[in-house]
């Protein structure tokens, strides 16, 4: 049974989806990513889908789920590398991917993660002061 590798990159996790996933594999990735997030206390997830040749409603739901779950675990997800043809198709399909942050590539995604994590640290500090 093949799995999707999850790499630890400093305080972030990097997932690069390199294969056309069947549904079970996609669900397995959700599970493994959340347990890895808790285990490594990572603050962010970079989900690189530049090798993905299509995003259908099932995959869109999975991306939204991953973003929602990581947020509940105190982390942020940025999806990077959506191919232009895939982006066109996502729009025509009608997928809006609410709550999913995206960036052009891994570098830009990393930059967004850094800012998001800094911001949530500041916000946390501010709320503490108020009490």
């Amino acid at each position: 049974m093949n799995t999707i590798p999850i790499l630890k990159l400093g305080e972030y996790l990097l997932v690069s989806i390199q294969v056309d996933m069947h549904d079970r594999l996609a669900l397995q990735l959700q599970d493994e990513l959340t347990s890895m997030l808790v285990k490594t206390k990572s603050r962010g997830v970079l989900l690189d889908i530049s090798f993905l040749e299509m995003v259908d409603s099932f995959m869109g739901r999975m991306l939204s789920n991953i973003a929602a779950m990581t947020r509940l675990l105190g982390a942020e997800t940025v999806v990077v590398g959506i191919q232009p043809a895939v982006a066109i198709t996502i729009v025509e399909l009608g997928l809006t991917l609410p709550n999913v942050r995206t960036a052009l590539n891994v570098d830009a995604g990393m930059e967004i993660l850094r800012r998001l994590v800094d911001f949530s640290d500041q916000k946390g500090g501010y709320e503490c002061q108020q009490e």
Partner: protein
Amino acid sequence: MSVSKSDAATIQNTEDIVRLRQRVRDLMKNEGFSLVDQTKMVTAASELARNALVYGGGGAVLVEVLKEDNGRTGLRLIFEDHGPGIADIDQALTDGFTTGNGLGLGLGGSKRLTNEFLIDSSPGAGTRITVTRWM
């Protein structure tokens, strides 16, 4: 118009959906469809195959390469299942309508992603959906 290539496959599990996506991709690449055309049709195929699996209890798909007399090439997919059928097709086609736990985008989205879209379904008799994308 003639059918220049044709093959059938069953849709019994989600691996079959992956195989169909790859089959559609390969055929369209070979015929010279643009990357955007390929991606749209592969996505529609994925949606309709999953519907046949989830709601139709599994089914079959016929994949056809079409040649028009004027030389135009098309790819046609005919999905068939013997599930419960669709009682209200307009409602099923409405974005956001789902009886499962989906987003309700599969049918309406597939219609937008293809050039021809035909649903033939009645309650109890199953569902046949035909989609075509022309080059």
